[in-house]
């Protein structure tokens, strides 16, 4: 055995350290981000488990008692005597139940649309970067076009055409959001495709699609994850805005935005809680997502990575 085949001693342990491990360690080093994450996890838990937590199904009109309408926080139920901790709304809904169900819709719409948009947008971006030429030019001009319109205006136009409904709101959000991912994925893929590991893979006779999906895509993920986190927050706010304007979800299935809108008319008669508590829930959710997203942006910064 000659010297060349003698293993070189190493100072690092044998344990594999995925590049993501560093991201996790960096992430948890920020207390605010960890608090944000915990709050977010809690919100998601109660949203998912809402049907088993709440005292009434706020969507079931049979369970609502109009006589209980607009009760102040802490009032008791006329029939079964349980307490309305956060009061009731104009239809006599328990606000705690309504908020949890509203969170369900908001999160479902926000996360669902952001994820679907991420998949579509990333795919479009990769295709655009890989194929290049006129297809790239066409797709990117379409992206420019989408991004140059005010989002609210576009959303109002699309929803006016599609009509109300949770599915339609999601479709609208996906139509508006994929462009962000597409542009980022394309830019990142172009940068990555110039790196030498791509040449090395080509030299090894690895096919183009394998290189794009197996080699380039994993390196494009960090900025896409950051955009994803912030887009979820954006989608939730946008859905709330649309519902507030009366174009989002139907009145029978109120999301947070619709709850705020419904309570809005009672603000002047000092029945603040109908709008305030759904508003607070929305605020806490958005702040938590943004805290997580900001920290992700810091730790996934490509200049710090590698």
């Amino acid at each position: 055995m000659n010297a060349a085949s003698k293993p070189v001693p190493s100072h690092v342990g044998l344990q594999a350290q995925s590049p993501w491990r560093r991201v996790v360690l960096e992430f948890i080093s920020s207390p605010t981000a960890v608090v944000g994450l915990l709050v977010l996890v809690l919100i998601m838990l109660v949203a998912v488990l809402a049907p088993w937590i709440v005292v009434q199904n706020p969507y079931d009109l049979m369970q609502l008692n109009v006589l209980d309408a607009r009760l102040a926080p802490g009032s008791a139920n006329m029939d079964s005597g349980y307490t309305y901790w956060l009061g009731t709304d104009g239809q006599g809904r328990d606000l705690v139940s309504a908020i949890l169900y509203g969170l369900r819709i908001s999160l479902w719409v926000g996360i669902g649309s952001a994820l679907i948009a991420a998949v579509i947008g990333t795919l479009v971006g990769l295709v655009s970067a890989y194929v290049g030429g006129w297809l790239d030019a066409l797709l990117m001009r379409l992206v420019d076009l989408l991004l140059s319109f005010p989002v609210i205006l576009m959303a109002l136009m699309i929803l006016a055409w599609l009509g109300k409904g949770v599915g339609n709101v999601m479709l609208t959000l996906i139509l508006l959001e994929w462009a962000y991912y597409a542009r980022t994925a394309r830019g990142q893929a172009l940068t990555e495709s110039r790196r030498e590991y791509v040449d090395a893979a080509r030299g090894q006779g690895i096919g183009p699609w394998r290189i794009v999906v197996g080699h380039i895509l994993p390196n494009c993920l960090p900025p896409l994850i950051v955009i994803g986190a912030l887009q979820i927050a954006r989608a939730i706010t946008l859905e709330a805005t649309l519902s507030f304007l009366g174009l989002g979800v139907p009145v029978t299935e109120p999301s947070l935005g619709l709850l705020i809108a419904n309570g809005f008319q009672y603000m002047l008669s000092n029945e603040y809680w109908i709008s305030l508590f759904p508003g607070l829930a929305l605020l806490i959710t958005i702040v938590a997502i943004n805290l997580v997203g900001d920290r992700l942006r810091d730790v996934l910064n490509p200049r710090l990575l590698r």
Partner: protein
Amino acid sequence: MSLPERNAAAMSTQAPTQTPTLEVRNLCTSFYTRAGVLPAVRDVSLRVAPGRILGLVGESGSGKSVTGFSILGLVDAPGRISGGQVLFKGRDLTQLSAAGLRELQGNRIAMIFQDPMMTLNPVLRVDTQMIEAVRAHRTVSKREARAHAGRTLALMGIPSPEERLRAYPHQLSGGMRQRVAIAIALLHAPDLIIADEPTTALDVTIQAQILSEVQKLVREQGTSLIWITHDLSVVAGLADDVAVMYAGRIVEQGSVADVLDRPQHPYTQGLIDSLPSRNKRGQRLRQIPGMAPDLLSMPTGCAFAARCSRATSVCAQEPPEREIAPGQTVRCFHPGAADAQ
């Protein structure tokens, strides 16, 4: 003003007793990272006399650049000078206020970086930057400052300086940019220049031109120069003295003739022996096995022991710096010429 005619005590044969421009005593610089304390520079002492060139040689992670930055007080957090003195003409720079340091930087002490764009601002014309640099430390009219800038460029062997003054950095080639950056460093005829690998990224023909010009200017102006590099061959031609760094310490220093021709430390010998020109053509090179230790988990004692063929049990202790010949010091328990072993 014209550049000082301080050619007086130039060429190499100075007595080491002359007051040094710079004397570094037991300098320690550490980086306090979340992963632990990283001792980048450990107990470094060196001196540079006027008109002399010191080559500071080492591999990546040896602490040679951090030493240069520490002398100038340019170490950023999480790094900190944790001990020792940096005496510049008798004043301890580590005790100086930020304002006091700024007064010296770019004026009496200048730095040249590997990337000239560390010095040059890409959106400003060369003359704007040079005039600003002149007037930062001297009250002269813009016209005078510009004339001085032109003269300094000419001094660096830059053809048609007037044209270069009007250019933006991106209009210049890499070699020309580095020359302009060096000219900016030379504007105030500083007493000390610290150059961190300024020719490493340049082509050999350009490097040769810059090396010979810098050497000439330093001799003429009586400037002290510390040239930080990984390239022993550059040091061999350029420097008067050489200090070899390994894992944060200077393991050997002395005159170029002594250290490069009669290396005493096994690491210095290993470095020289691994140069292709010091090996028989086509034969395996004499290599140093292994690699430099991780600064975060440094072994006790001599940091080179794990790679050293002479290492014995005594090397588990820290070897002291010993003067082995007049002006040549070594940190090793087993110094000596390679053949003696």
